[in-house]
């Protein structure tokens, strides 16, 4: 306790902080150049050791991009590495092309392989992605050892690399500079993606894919593109590796793919420095341990097991948990203020919400088809899961624009399935869904989100390692253009800082408007269930949708918070948003909703004005049990 109190709080002005950051990056850059100079002038033994490690560091960084951030365990990276290395070696030897022309060529070749592999395998599950990429590496290995052009098992000697001439010759080995420069490129690209809002989107795809899709992220496209990028970087590593002595099939066997994964895990998945540290450790390990090679392999294999079992978050995980033990300030403070501030905050936030999102120009764009138009029409929706019985049997539903439409019914009556059909997670067997006059039942969820259609999930699906604010920012993804394409050089891009601040401000405002301001900086992993529901609500409405589906948004909320959510939903409706609300708290539903539909065993029992439905004897029978 005392350490928390005694800890001094330094306040640094933003301009000063930016200046300090620039100074920090500048000195890091100078240190990197100095280290490179040392390697380039160093002994051949040192060069061999460091440059091989650098090539693997590029591979590990690019692998972490797919495995750590996106959750795609590629076992194809040795194959992609081989594509870059062998292409460079063979084309140089056979046709004598300039080696610097071969760099982009190697990257493109590896990227094309990655694109093909990704497009083919990501239509099935993550496990099949691992298997298919594994088979790719096997096939590349077979081609390398059996074709005449690749030199068979013996491999091929490296093309020669030009040296510095004249004044530059004091710099030492040009090859060392080139390889280290390639590593720097990989470092900048991965660092930039980690800094950009795209990183949160990748994490959302990894941990909460339905959430990402509902936020308008075309997850399959993003997955294929990120794997293609990773493949291109690995191709660059292969190009650099081609100049380090010779290439032979053994250097690119399938076990090398697993070694790369080990590098990432040993260093720390989804961290910036982890893959580099892991690559340095794994590739220099054999040289540093001068024992019998068989025993060396035994130790090596044992390390695989021990690290994954005991330190699954790797070296960086150990470091960060040590760091947290030394300075346990941030999460504790945030949680405490969250707990104590929640009750007082709600009332003050209510006023704030009035002036935040709903009064601006956005209101105009939302009132699309007029207050008395029809927002959603479902006709004859029929659906069953797999071979099971039909969950929905010819459901008709009409939701008028600018109203709150309640959807109630006993457990298992098909409410959430209906929500999934309307929002695009599932496709109906029969029947149509029309939103604002457009037939959407064949559109994927992400497309519907882009048509102003957002939703929350019954059990909160969020990224648990990100803060509430960052999760909500994922919901705003569709409204800021080019996050994906700009992420490669995000910090350098003009307007990036402005867009990042816009995202952050929008997310803050959205959290405040639902009464969750106190949790803004808290990680979702540390949230109570109710706050997670509020965060989902904030993430769904931050992008100013025209239609909103809420699947049991009140689960786990206190009475006070329930009241507040009621007010939020009313003010959303008054600004023109159509809301479909699935909820079990009947009193809340009938007090809030304009119209109510009652489902029972996959059929509509009653639908209409809330007061009429409430009086319907059949509804009382099936649902209220009165």
């Amino acid at each position, binding site marked *: 306790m005392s350490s928390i109190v005694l800890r001094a709080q330094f306040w640094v002005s933003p301009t000063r902080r930016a200046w300090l950051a620039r100074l920090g990056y500048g000195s890091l850059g100078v240190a990197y150049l100095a280290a490179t100079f040392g390697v380039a002038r160093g002994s051949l033994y040192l060069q061999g050791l460091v440059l091989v490690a650098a090539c693997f560091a590029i591979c590990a960084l690019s692998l972490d991009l797919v495995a750590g951030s996106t959750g795609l365990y590629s076992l194809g990276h040795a194959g992609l590495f081989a594509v870059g290395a062998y292409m460079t070696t063979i084309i140089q030897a056979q046709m004598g092309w300039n080696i610097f022309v071969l760099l982009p060529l190697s990257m493109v070749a590896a990227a094309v392989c990655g694109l093909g592999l990704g497009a083919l395998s990501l239509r099935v599950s993550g496990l099949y992605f691992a*298997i298919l990429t594994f088979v790719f590496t096997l096939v590349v290995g077979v081609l390398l050892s059996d074709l005449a052009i690749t030199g068979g098992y013996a491999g091929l000697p490296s093309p020669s690399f030009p040296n510095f001439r004249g004044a530059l010759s004091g710099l030492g080995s040009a090859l060392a500079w080139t390889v280290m420069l390639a590593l720097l490129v990989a470092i900048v690209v991965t660092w930039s993606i980690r800094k950009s809002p795209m990183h949160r989107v990748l994490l959302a795809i990894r941990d909460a894919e339905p959430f990402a899709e509902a936020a308008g992220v075309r997850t399959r496209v993003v997955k294929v593109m990120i794997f293609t990028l990773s493949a291109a970087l690995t191709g660059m590593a292969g190009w650099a590796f081609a100049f380090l002595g010779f290439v032979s099939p053994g250097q690119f066997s399938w*076990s090398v793919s697993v070694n790369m994964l080990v590098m990432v895990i040993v260093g720390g998945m989804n961290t910036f420095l982890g893959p580099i540290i892991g690559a340095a450790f794994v590739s220099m390990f054999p040289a540093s341990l001068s024992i019998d090679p068989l025993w060396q392999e035994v130790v090596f294999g044992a390390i695989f097991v021990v690290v*994954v079992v005991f330190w699954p978050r790797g070296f960086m995980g150990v470091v960060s948990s040590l760091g947290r033990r030394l300075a346990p300030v941030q999460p504790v403070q945030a949680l405490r203020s969250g707990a104590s501030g929640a009750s007082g905050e709600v009332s003050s936030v209510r006023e704030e919400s009035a002036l935040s999102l709903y009064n601006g120009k956005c209101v105009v764009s939302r009132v699309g088809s007029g207050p008395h138009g029809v927002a959603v029409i479902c006709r004859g929706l029929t659906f069953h899961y797999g071979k099971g019985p039909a969950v929905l049997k010819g459901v008709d539903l009409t939701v008028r624009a600018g109203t709150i439409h309640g959807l109630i019914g006993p457990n298992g009556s098909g409410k959430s399935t209906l929500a999934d059909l309307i929002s695009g997670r599932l496709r109906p067997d029969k029947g149509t869904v029309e939103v604002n006059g457009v037939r959407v039942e064949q559109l994927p969820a992400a497309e519907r989100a882009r048509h102003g259609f957002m939703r929350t999930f019954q059990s909160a699906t969020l990224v648990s390692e990100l803060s509430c604010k960052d999760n909500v920012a994922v919901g705003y993804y569709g409204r800021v253009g080019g996050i994906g394409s700009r992420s490669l050089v995000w910090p350098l891009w003009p307007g990036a800082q402005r867009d990042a601040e816009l995202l952050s401000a929008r997310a803050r405002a959205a959290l405040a408007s639902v009464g969750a301001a106190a949790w803004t900086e808290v990680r979702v992993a540390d949230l109570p269930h109710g706050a997670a529901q509020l965060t989902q609500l904030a993430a769904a409405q931050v992008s100013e949708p025209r239609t909103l589906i809420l699947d049991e948004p009140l689960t786990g909320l206190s009475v006070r918070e329930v009241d507040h959510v009621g007010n939020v939903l009313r003010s959303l409706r008054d600004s023109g948003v159509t809301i479909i609300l699935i909820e079990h708290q009947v009193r809340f539903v009938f007090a809030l909703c304009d119209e109510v539909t009652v489902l029972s065993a996959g059929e509509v029992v009653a639908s209409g004005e809330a007061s009429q439905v409430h009086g319907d004897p059949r509804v009382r029978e099936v649902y209220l049990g009165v």
Partner: protein
Amino acid sequence: MFEALVTGIALGCIYGLVAMGFAVAFLVTRVINFAQGQLLMISVMVAAAAASAGWPSVVAMLAGVACAAAAGALTYVVAVRPVLASDRFSFGWLVTTLGVAVVMENVAAIIWGPTSRAFPLMLNGTSAHIGSATVSWQQILAVLVAFALLSAFELFRRRSIYGKVSMAVAQDPEMASAVGANTMVISVSAFVVAGLLAGVAGVLVGPITYANPYLGDTYGIDGFVALMMAGADQPAGALVGGVLLGVLNNEANVIINSQASAWFPFVVVVLVLLVCPRGLFSGEVRSWLRGVRRSLVGVG
């Protein structure tokens, strides 16, 4: 060519047994055990060492199979259980099972030396004639044993309560343990069965390959390729996949050239995966065939 077909079937049964081991472990735990090939190697090495120490060859082989089964259980306890316990959907087992494979292979090389050693002959190396082909009794035994094991396994899976509980564990371990299934015992048993299958494959192939600590790599990969052709969770399909692979290997050698078995099966597996990524015997292909049959019947 006919002889290549028959010997291909025999060889394919060995691949098939390894692939079946992969499939049994995967079916229950959703883990592909990359040390599966090394289990075969352990059986071969132990049997060879025991036989050269003067044990009767049948006892030596039983010892080999038992060691492979024990090594399977050990793999699960050391490398799979801890990973799945912390996160059921983690892919950490990709790395840990491979680590176990590396350790097994090199420890075997340290104990028994990296070179090949003799393996006891079975059935005195006699052979029979089937049509124009000469087939050793050893190979006929391999086919018989493989199909006997498959039938026993399928009977056990479908008829016994343990088999049904294993399927429940495969579907949803949390739910299965909630209704009283001991998931730990079931999962260990799956790895023991996987080890048994690999061990039996080992003593069947030992007389042909001799005992070598690096056998695991070759047979592990071949078994994996057979598994990929069939679909990862189809033990019966895996055996058929193995037979298919064995026949393809031998016929490619005869028809294309003597090196073709090194690459031809990979071409086939890539084509298979492109057309049906979940394998030949997966649900999607079966339902597609059913659709074809229905439309044919409809037309007729």
